[in-house]
């Protein structure tokens, strides 16, 4: 599988450095400092999570994790350790390339612009006035929903794990609320959809069952 991935990425103009195990991966990391790391969690000589942690200590280089289906816990653990996104095996090469391109494009979290506005697609947040609008139509949000939306809009193209959203919105002591995250997100999405005549917010927040939510990119064509 590695061979065809490498060949395909190389054919699309990427320079690829291969590593077959954790030790050589870390050696390549030290020597090459790549722009992006593709990491299979099922490495022969150990836990891929250790690579994620090591790289995260030293840099914000994007990490895309490849994991087996059904191993939601492993995925979440890798994402919590600092990985940016994942692709489930078996995957199509086109899908993989799209994820790689998205991660390379990403310029880190978008802070509010000087005017205090955060926007993604048709949705705009006025951070100063705590107002959300969709295509100019104001949306009536509760404080929770507002915080959720702000966190999401600040991370376009990112995969946000449940734990991360909970920490951002509820703080570290979220305890029971965790079970309700989906319901809050659901309400938020419905409010956005109700205010959105063009139907552009439909794919803005995409649920990844068992992992969290993926936030669309502005530039990315909608699926």
């Amino acid at each position, binding site marked *: 599988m590695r061979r065809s991935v490498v060949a395909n990425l190389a054919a699309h103009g990427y320079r690829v450095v291969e590593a077959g195990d954790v030790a050589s991966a870390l050696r390549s990391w030290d020597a090459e400092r790549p722009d992006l790391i593709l990491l299979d969690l099922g490495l022969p000589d150990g836990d891929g999570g250790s690579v994620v942690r090591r790289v995260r200590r030293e840099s914000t280089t994007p990490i895309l994790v490849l994991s087996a289906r059904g191993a939601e816990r492993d995925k979440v653990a890798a994402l919590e350790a600092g990985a940016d996104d994942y692709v489930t095996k078996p995957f199509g090469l086109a899908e993989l390339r799209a994820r790689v391109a998205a991660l390379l494009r990403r310029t880190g979290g978008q802070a509010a612009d000087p005017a205090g506005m955060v926007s993604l697609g048709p949705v705009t947040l006025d951070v100063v*006035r705590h107002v959300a609008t969709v295509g100019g139509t104001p949306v009536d949000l*509760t404080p929770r929903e507002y915080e959720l939306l702000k966190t999401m809009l600040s991370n376009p193209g990112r995969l946000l794990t449940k734990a991360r959203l909970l920490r951002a919105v509820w703080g570290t002591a*979220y305890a029971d609320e965790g079970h309700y995250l989906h319901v809050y997100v659901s309400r938020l999405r*419905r409010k956005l959809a109700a205010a959105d005549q063009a139907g552009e917010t439909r794919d803005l927040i995409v649920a990844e069952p068992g992992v969290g939510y993926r936030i669309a990119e502005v530039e990315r064509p909608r699926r």
Partner: protein
Amino acid sequence: MTIRRRLCRGDNRLVANWLRFETPAGTADTRAVTDRVYHRRVTSLVQLPRRPVFEPQRVLIAAVGTVAGVAAASVVVAALESPLVAIADASPVYLVSVVLVGSRFGMWAGIATAIASFLTYDLLFTEPRFSLIVADPRELLDLVLFLFLAVVVGRLSALGLERAAEATRRASESNALFAMSRILAIAPDLEAAAVEIVERLVRETGLDRVWIAVLRTGQTTILADSEPGQPIPVSAFTTSLVRTPGDAPAKWVRSHDPKAAGAASSETRSEILRVRMEADGALIGALKATRVRASGQPPRETTRLLALAADQLALAIRRDELRREATEAEIARQGDTLKSALLDAVSHDLRTPLASIRAAAGALTDPDVTLTDDATRSAGAAIDLEAQRLDRLVHEVLDLSRIEAGALRPDLEALDIRDVVEPAVDRLRPMLGDRPVTIDLPDDLPPVRGDAVLLDTIVGNLVENAGRYAPAPAPLAISAAAEHGRIRLVVEDGGPGVPAQSQAQLFDKFYRVERTGAGSRRGLGIGLAVVRGLAEGMGGGVEAGPSALGGLRIVVELPVAATPPADAPSSLGSAPTAGAEAAASPGSEPARTPR
């Protein structure tokens, strides 16, 4: 208390019998083992004596009876021989005493009465009075007759008493037997029955503590204990019931083993009674009890009850084992059936995509064939398509095996079912073809309590199932409603449907509705089995029935999750304040009802 150190070296049978307790069943050379164990550990081996027959109370009562009988007879004789009645020889009156006393108190009392009667009569009523000189040989004849009668009557009455005692014994034995079989028959399982029997034994025998040690696969486990939780007592003194085949009465044999584990620290005033439990000649375990150490055997009643209980328990345990073995064999057999069904399915359904993949790959790698770019791409696309199909099949099998292995660990959360249904339908729309799809999920539906990944699989499998067996343009409708604290998710189609008699089996693995024609054999027939497994794993259920659309209607029922209360009203339009920030912190969140 003295221990009679009568080592039973001479009585080989006894030693061998007793030592069978120590020897695992089936040891070929019993003697070799017995000698070794005997010399190494047991310092004394004593057959306990039967309870002494001498009972002072009974003797006293018999003596009183004898005296009273003789006295009464003497008074009557005196009256009869008085000048008033003037019967010359009233000595036969004593016969009445002899018979009465003999029948009431036994042979020895009868003999005593006979002799006492003779002496009294001789002393008081014959000339010369107050002397033992027998002048009349007739008196000697009387004595002999009295003695004879006493022996005969005594024997007869003793026999009667013994028979009566025997009858009582048998009655109580069969009562106990009946009670125990009843316990064993009624109790929900062997453990419960054993506990009840143990308690009954404590109640009826007055033993301090009774427990059942069972030997299973070389390990001793305690099946039941009258004082559960307490450490099992240890004693250097173990008294075992030795039962030999045939009519020989059971014997209690005490062994003294000063080196027994923990014996030194344990109380030496008590001993352990042990009754071996065996069935089909194999050692199953032992019924054990503690009692205060005594030189005599336990009472016969106790011995009998313990022996009976041991036999009944041995049979019950053996039966339980056989039943368990039969169940295991049945499970193994079903497992085999499952495996062959799986192999069958694998050979048919997994090979088809593999064959296509290999054919396409063969075309691509053939050095003699130059393919056009379009042909190459279409071969690649075929490989991709078939590989996806293979992936779905493997996924299904993996889901099923996770359910079967009990490895399902649902991560239960409150979910909006619309967020699950809509993406799943979107994802599968390509395979649904051109057909009307209705999704009717009310806005006010309470959240469902489930695992997002598993629920997604359920919806995906149901939609796929409908897409596969109800070919387009048959309509597909998905709806949900809340009812009695449950969410009922309904997926129905306008396809050919499933005959009523097959609906019950629909959720069985590898079950496929018999169908003729194209597309009749697609899928492993485990998609719905997975749906049921997952739904049950999340505390829900499934049912199938006919749909108003004409096809199959499948209902998945899942528990409703508590609705989280809406948080503080919107701060829309207000300036950012510390208050608004605080409202978003966990501390100010209203208390939630626990899930």
